[in-house]
């Protein structure tokens, strides 16, 4: 029950933050969220910054450059407000991820919980195997692989992936049926 309340609180905080357009309110929200993070604040702040830096940085630099070039002024208000909002929302998400067990938060629906557990566990295995495919291609030759070789390798990785889908679905259905999970 506590996990569900945290999920609802997180969603409410995200929606409320998305409406904020005043830098002072956003800065206040950031301070409160950092306080809620406790000792993990520096680590979570770093993760939130890294997760948003590529998009926010590209857009901010482009907009600052465009405004500086065309209107000879920096959009400081926009830069501060939007970057604070983006950082605060990302920090809220990372705080949610570290503090809430999503499988318990979604346990109000038995089917959704099953689906999430099965999908996430298989996703991680598939991701790891695809990394092995990539390392395998790199290790087979001293020279970098040609474009056609990389296409063939990518196509084989995809075919393996879809082959696993069919096999995994079959295996999971049998395993769940034998344990009465689908009744």
């Amino acid at each position, binding site marked *: 029950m506590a996990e569900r309340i945290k999920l609802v609180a997180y969603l409410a905080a*995200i*929606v409320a933050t*998305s409406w904020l*357009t005043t830098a002072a309110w956003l800065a206040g929200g950031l301070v409160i969220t950092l306080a809620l993070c406790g000792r993990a604040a520096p680590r979570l702040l770093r993760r*939130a910054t890294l*997760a948003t830096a590529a*998009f926010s940085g*590209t*857009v901010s630099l*482009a*907009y600052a450059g465009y405004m500086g070039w065309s209107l000879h002024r920096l*959009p400081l*208000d*926009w830069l501060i*407000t*939007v970057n604070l909002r*983006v950082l*605060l*929302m*990302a920090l809220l*998400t990372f705080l*949610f*991820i570290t503090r809430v067990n*999503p499988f318990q938060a979604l346990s109000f629906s038995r*089917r959704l919980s*099953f*689906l*999430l557990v*099965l*999908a*996430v566990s*298989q*996703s991680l*295995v*598939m*991701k790891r195997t*695809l990394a092995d495919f990539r390392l395998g291609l790199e290790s087979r030759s001293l020279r970098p692989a040609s474009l056609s070789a*990389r*296409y063939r390798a*990518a*196509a*084989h990785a*995809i*075919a393996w*992936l*879809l*082959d*696993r*889908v*069919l*096999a*995994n*679905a*079959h*295996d*999971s*259905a049998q395993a*769940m*049926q034998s344990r009465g999970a*689908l009744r």
Partner: protein
Amino acid sequence: MHIPDGFIAPQMYLPLYAAATAAWAYGAKRVGQELDESSLPWLAALTAASFALSFVALPLPGGTSAHVTGVGLLAVVFGFWQAFVAASLVFAIQALLFGDGGITTLPLNALAMGFAGALAARGLFLALRHFHIGLALFLAGWIGLTLPALLIALALGAQPLIAANATGEPQYFPFGWGVTLPALLIPHALLGLGEGALTLLGWRLVERLRGRYQHG
């Protein structure tokens, strides 16, 4: 590159959530009807594949690479509704478990990539497969990447129009369609050629493997 939270105005993402929720509810019902009692593990496996597909590198000339979306391939191999539901679940998992992408951009991604991308890919494949299956698959992969890019460019470019302050300055994403359309469409139309090629190659390999499960 995922769009983080904070760039899409609530005036846009809240109505998109309403539309996406209706599509998810109907999609889940359709997937349940089309499949038997094993639909849950099937959908989980498809979601995992959709998630993992985003880690397959799309080879580009010069040794560089981008990431495959795989929406077109999922739509032609498994069907539109299954591709849509699986892709939506992937966006939710990425946002809520890994902090990749945003919870406010989830409905935009789901509707643009999962719904429109998969629908266009499946529709183009069905329309052209009797004419030339290779061309149908290639174009399905291409449109599965390019159409979502167009829709996301339109959504991003609309932000200054729907959420500006009293002096007309943007409060969310700052650029209009004059910037977003060429910035997103041109690279994705080119990347789509690679996605089209991979869709064609992937389909051919899958066809070889499929028989064993259909007959097994």
